[in-house]
């Protein structure tokens, strides 16, 4: 695929990065910032970490929408993912979790998300739920029952401190200057996510299941007459999206090391950003991961700015991703939304 075409396909993601870089450059020049105090290795590491939960969620949501189902319930799934991971970690370890428990907790949380995802998929596909309302409902349910789980376990919506994931240091490689610490002495979850993104991309474009998912979203009837069960394909995709969002939540928890269920909960809108991310990436898993990195980077950037004493009204700066989305959608026009999204499909008979 020529770069031109690639660029065309992922204009949103690229545009996003362009906007970011340009903005940063202008800012840097405008008020000669201590550039290297802002862009530190730690900053890059934290950006990558901040990006992982968003990227995972985005990749899942992307699959669902590609298959023709708009799953805007991912925020809810993330909350459940985080809450179950926390409670599971506590229960498995009997109150004193260690590294192994973190992994077990993530696993357990994924399994629980799987159950929820199946139920949700049945409502969306079998019972043709209104996807927008059902998704919003799932968000509310998450905001309610997520913290409630914590209440049941700790009589408080906030968990005590649990275990957070340790960095994985790859011997030798980790000693490479700059790149070493960033890529080979960091949370294994970052690496896992990177691998997942590439795998998801390959799967979508080069396997028959990938073809089916795309067809299910663009022209389900065509897939049906080709003898493939559209419903099954969509079930798979929606369930996958739920699981990925759950995983995203679990990963977020594994990084934070404790659950907070007050306010908007510790997830605090990352699910929504996830949706935005795959739109930016224009339905390309890698693009979505990159977009997630852009948002994670933005968030960490405004933190860096605060740290070096550049006073930004953070309530406003935090809005940048949202404004950015609107800007890019406006300048680069519509995303290539699959044409059958939101339409339940009933095959004849």
């Amino acid at each position, binding site marked *: 695929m020529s770069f031109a075409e690639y660029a065309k396909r992922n204009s949103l993601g690229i545009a996003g990065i362009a906007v970011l870089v340009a903005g940063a450059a202008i800012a840097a020049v405008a008020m000669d910032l201590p550039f290297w*105090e802002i862009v*530190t290795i*730690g*900053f890059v590491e*934290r950006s990558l*970490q*901040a990006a992982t939960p968003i990227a995972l969620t985005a990749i899942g949501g992307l699959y669902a929408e590609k298959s023709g189902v708009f799953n805007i319930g991912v925020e809810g799934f993330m909350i459940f993912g985080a809450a179950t991971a926390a409670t599971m970690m506590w229960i498995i370890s009997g109150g004193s979790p260690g590294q192994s428990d973190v992994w077990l907790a993530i696993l357990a949380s994924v399994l629980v998300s799987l159950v929820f995802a199946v139920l949700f998929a049945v409502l969306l596909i079998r019972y043709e739920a209104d996807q927008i309302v059902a998704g919003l409902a799932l968000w509310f349910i998450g905001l309610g029952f997520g913290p409630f789980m914590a209440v049941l376990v700790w009589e*408080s*919506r*906030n968990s*005590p*401190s649990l275990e*957070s994931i340790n960095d994985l240091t790859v011997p030798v490689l980790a000693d490479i200057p700059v790149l070493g610490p960033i890529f080979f002495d960091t949370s294994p979850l970052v690496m896992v996510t990177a691998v997942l993104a590439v795998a998801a991309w390959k799967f979508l474009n080069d396997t028959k299941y990938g073809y089916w998912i795309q067809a299910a979203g663009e022209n389900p009837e065509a897939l049906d007459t080709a003898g493939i069960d559209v419903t099954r394909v969509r079930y798979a995709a929606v369930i996958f999206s739920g699981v990925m969002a759950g995983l995203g939540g679990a990963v*977020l928890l594994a*990084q*934070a*090391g*404790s659950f*907070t*269920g*007050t*306010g*908007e*909960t*510790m997830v*605090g809108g990352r699910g929504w950003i996830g949706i935005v991310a795959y739109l930016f990436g224009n339905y390309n898993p890698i693009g979505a991961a990159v977009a997630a990195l852009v948002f994670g980077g933005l*968030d*960490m950037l405004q*933190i*860096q700015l*605060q*740290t*070096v*004493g550049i006073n930004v*009204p*953070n*309530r406003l700066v*935090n809005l940048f991703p949202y404004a950015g989305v609107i800007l890019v959608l406006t300048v680069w026009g519509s995303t290539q939304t699959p044409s059958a999204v939101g339409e339940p499909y009933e095959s004849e008979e």
Partner: protein
Amino acid sequence: LGGDGGDGGSESTTNIAIVSSPAGFDDNAFNDLAVDGLETAQEEYDIEINQVEETEQSNYQSTQSTLAESSDYDLIVLVSYNHTEALTQNAAEYPDQNWMLINAHVDEPNVAGYTWANHEMSYLAGVLGGTMTTEELSHEGNSNDPSNAHIGFVGGVDGSLINAFERSYVAGAEWVNSDVTVDVGYIGDYSDTDTAASIASSQYDNGADIVYHAAAAAGQGVFESAQENDRFAIGVDADQSVTLEEFQDVIIGSAVKYINEGTQEVASAVAEGDFESVTGANTLGLDEEGVDLVIGQAFEGEMPDVVSQNIQDAKDGITSGDIEVPCSASGCN
């Protein structure tokens, strides 16, 4: 004097309702402390507590009046200044109802307004940070870097209330060491632990070795980050080296305010049928021993003497008025 309310429960029982701040209970901060105090009072008197969690400010008006209307309660405790607007109306509307408002005051005879001098305790936190950043200290693998005077602050929402914590903390640090650097960062809410951790990490990276937080529940992230970076932190509101003992290895101290004692005082007064004694605006600062700075339980005795020395001097200065602490108990305007 709350007499009218007595009819809920038997004569002797004192019924108290407490309405949360938007942050809700379980904030490891003033909501929980306020309840704490009531529970302490419970040990002494026959008190029934009804915890009402309301996180939408737009509902305070009706929640308050519903509680007052029922006239079941001898005292209604309202946590945080978010209740002020609503109470301004209800206090007048229900003149026979006893109210306690935390962190603000409404000028009515039936209101006991309690404010704690956040600025004073934060000033002391600043003194602690400003002193220790240039001292040798290492504890269970955590250590700070005496070579540079550099500390940090992580706030919840960037608004007048938390600004008071920030400015006074900075002032305190500068009082000790005029050329100290203080990194400041705000989360944007009180629940995003992960972002809190990122901010702290960013500050530790930047050279800070002690970070003070005023971010309620999200503050845990700061301690997580301290452990990760083998640095230190300062807790807030309660002695967090006790309430979150899993972090006692990094919490060198906490700026504490005895909200619990405030609510206990009022609860007891009501139980005694002597609410008048507590009505009006009560600002509890160092003088009233309403706020203080305590050393983390793992660090008692490990601190160089200069610490306790400086803190004592600062306290004297503040009470005597020689030290001018910026902002006020209710915030920074």
